[in-house]
């Protein structure tokens, strides 16, 4: 990007200050990004280990690893709740969003730095409440469906209260990012020059701001129902259990896009850099994030096709669901078109980006199966759903997250990881992921229901294969983690502050960036993706 001259005199890296106080009271968006990154990674590891435990249990048809079926139920509830609410919802938006948004738009920080810190602390309070519930954790699954969530003897209130509190963190972060993007763009950083990660973060922030209050109130109703037996969801008292599902999915479907839209933004940043080509269809990609954000509010009933809802409503929502495929496909086609005739460098982050395109396409297309009314009746609550969801969430969001970690690692930490090891880890993760989840499509088609600790003998080969895959996947993640952690304790700095030749603003500052990002706010004079332009 042909930006104004930026001098980095008095360059003090934002990581220079040491001590606990410099972290817990920081208002630097980059440090807050690290705080989120560390916390969400911790929960990702815990939730991942829980998943490995579940897969180990499913190696054989009998109950042998967990002592009771309830223990298994608790394990999948913990896995789902931690992964969804503590890792993947705040995930990229809070960690990379915090680190990148001010740097990419040419600002010194977010609009409200103190609120930014407050939202991290609220996130921590939410996690503390959740952890306090671990003595007798809930067994409802991450969806907390009524009437079971009202009747079960496990501690539903604590876990839902934790999620309720987390919601405020999400709302504040979304609000902060919206104001930042509107008010703090550098001179010349027009909407048509904005990096696509910023467009994606803006669309995500809208969802965080507007959809999260709905789940907050829903969970509050559930808590009130359990504590005071009011009857919102009890037919005997004039309530309706399906009402809970309506409320829950009105948030939780848009939440799926809170999870994945930031990853779309990341892929749009990585691909042009390593294809050395301008992004194809910039406006289409930018606007499609908004189209997804808007349509996401019109499809929630597709989670409830077999819940006893009316056929009329089901037919309407089946049709509406298909609409999501359009803006999503717009993105995938544009990324592919960007690759066409590009000079592709298979850097580890590019490998994750390419994996994203393949795996997310599988996840998206199998979503079309589930959006189709008649097919969903057969596949609902089977392993097909589990496979579909993981292809979207791991194949999509987590691949984007890993890609981002490798792409911006040098910028964020000012260190260099071993590229060959990173590629080996990527290979294991890619293979392990597919070996774990691809057999689950077949299991689901053949009727294997999800959330069961035991199963008939006929599914044993699929389950065993899936478990072997989880070990390969786990090994890959372990190698990746070690490879990214080791350089943090070693001396040495990157040779260049812009090793990949990116034109985006964040790469024009030193690695790691100075405390206030820019000595002088830059003036932007060109597009972010003008690769190959003379």
């Amino acid at each position, binding site marked *: 990007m042909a930006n104004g001259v930026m001098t980095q005199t008095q360059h003090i890296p934002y990581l220079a200050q040491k001590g606990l106080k410099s972290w817990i009271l920081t208002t630097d968006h980059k440090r807050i990004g690290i705080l989120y990154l560390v916390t969400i990674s911790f929960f990702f590891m815990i939730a991942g280990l829980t998943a490995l435990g579940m897969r180990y249990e499913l190696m054989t048809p009998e109950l042998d690893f967990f002592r009771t079926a309830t223990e298994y139920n608790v394990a999948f509830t913990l896995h789902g709740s931690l992964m969804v609410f503590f890792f993947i919802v705040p995930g990229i938006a809070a960690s990379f969003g915090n680190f990148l948004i001010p740097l990419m738009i040419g600002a010194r920080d977010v609009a409200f730095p103190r609120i930014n810190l407050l939202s991290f602390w609220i996130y921590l309070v939410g996690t503390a409440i959740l952890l306090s519930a671990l003595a007798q954790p809930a067994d409802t699954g991450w969806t907390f469906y009524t009437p079971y969530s009202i009747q079960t003897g496990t501690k539903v209130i604590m876990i839902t209260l934790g999620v309720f509190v987390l919601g405020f963190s999400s709302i504040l972060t979304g609000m902060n990012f919206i104001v930042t993007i509107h*008010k703090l763009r550098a001179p010349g950083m027009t909407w048509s020059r904005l990096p696509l990660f910023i467009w994606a973060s803006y669309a995500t922030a809208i969802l965080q701001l*507007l959809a999260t209050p*709905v789940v907050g109130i829903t969970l509050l109703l559930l808590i009130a129902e359990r504590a005071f037996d009011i009857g919102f969801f009890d037919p005997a008292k004039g309530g309706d259990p399906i009402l809970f599902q*309506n409320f829950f999915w009105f948030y939780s479907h848009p939440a799926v896009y809170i999870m994945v839209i930031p990853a779309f933004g990341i892929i749009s940043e990585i691909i042009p850099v390593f294809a050395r080509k301008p992004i194809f269809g910039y406006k289409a990609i930018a606007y499609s994030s908004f189209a997804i954000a808007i349509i996401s*509010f019109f499809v929630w*009933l597709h989670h409830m096709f077999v819940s006893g809802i009316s*056929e*009329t409503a089901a037919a309407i929502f089946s049709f509406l669901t298909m609409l999501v495929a359009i803006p999503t496909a717009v993105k995938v086609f544009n990324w592919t078109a960007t690759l066409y005739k590009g000079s592709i460098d298979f850097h580890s982050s590019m490998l994750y980006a390419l994996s994203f395109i393949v795996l997310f396409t599988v996840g998206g297309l199998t979503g079309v199966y589930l959006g189709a009314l008649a097919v969903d009746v057969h596949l609902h609550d089977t392993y097909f759903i589990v496979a579909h969801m993981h292809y979207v969430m791991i194949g999509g969001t987590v691949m984007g997250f890993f890609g981002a970690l490798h792409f911006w690692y040098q910028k964020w930490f000012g260190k260099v990881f071993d590229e060959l090891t990173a590629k080996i880890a990527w290979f294991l993760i890619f293979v392990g992921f597919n070996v774990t989840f691809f057999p689950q499509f077949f299991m689901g088609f053949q009727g294997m229901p999800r959330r069961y600790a035991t199963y008939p003998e006929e599914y044993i080969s699929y389950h065993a294969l899936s478990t072997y895959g989880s070990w390969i996947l786990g090994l890959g993640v372990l190698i990746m983690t070690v490879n990214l952690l080791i350089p943090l304790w070693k001396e040495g700095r990157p040779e260049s502050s812009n090793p990949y030749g990116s034109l985006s603003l964040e790469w024009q500052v030193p690695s790691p960036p100075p405390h206030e990002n820019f000595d002088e706010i830059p003036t932007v004079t060109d597009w972010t993706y003008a690769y190959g332009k003379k």
Partner: protein
Amino acid sequence: MSTHDHTEEHHTGLRAYAAVCLALFVLTAVTVYVAKFDFGDFNIVVAMLIASIKAAIVALYFMHLKFEDKLTWIYALYPLFLLFLLIGFTIMETFTRVPVIK
């Protein structure tokens, strides 16, 4: 936010705030008063109407919406559209259900 140069423009006087406060008290009294009458199915409509007027006054004056720009209005009104969507589709779904057990 680094700039807040329009703060002085929407300075609502103390008298206006007092008037809004008074209006809220009056409307609360009206809510209590109308509760004595039975409007049948419209009980909830009447109560919600008064509550909506109160909410609008709070948003417009206490929360300064009246003095904000178009973008803030969009962000204030879009959730109302979402609320309409949630309630509308949920009611549509409920009323188009075919009872299985008669």
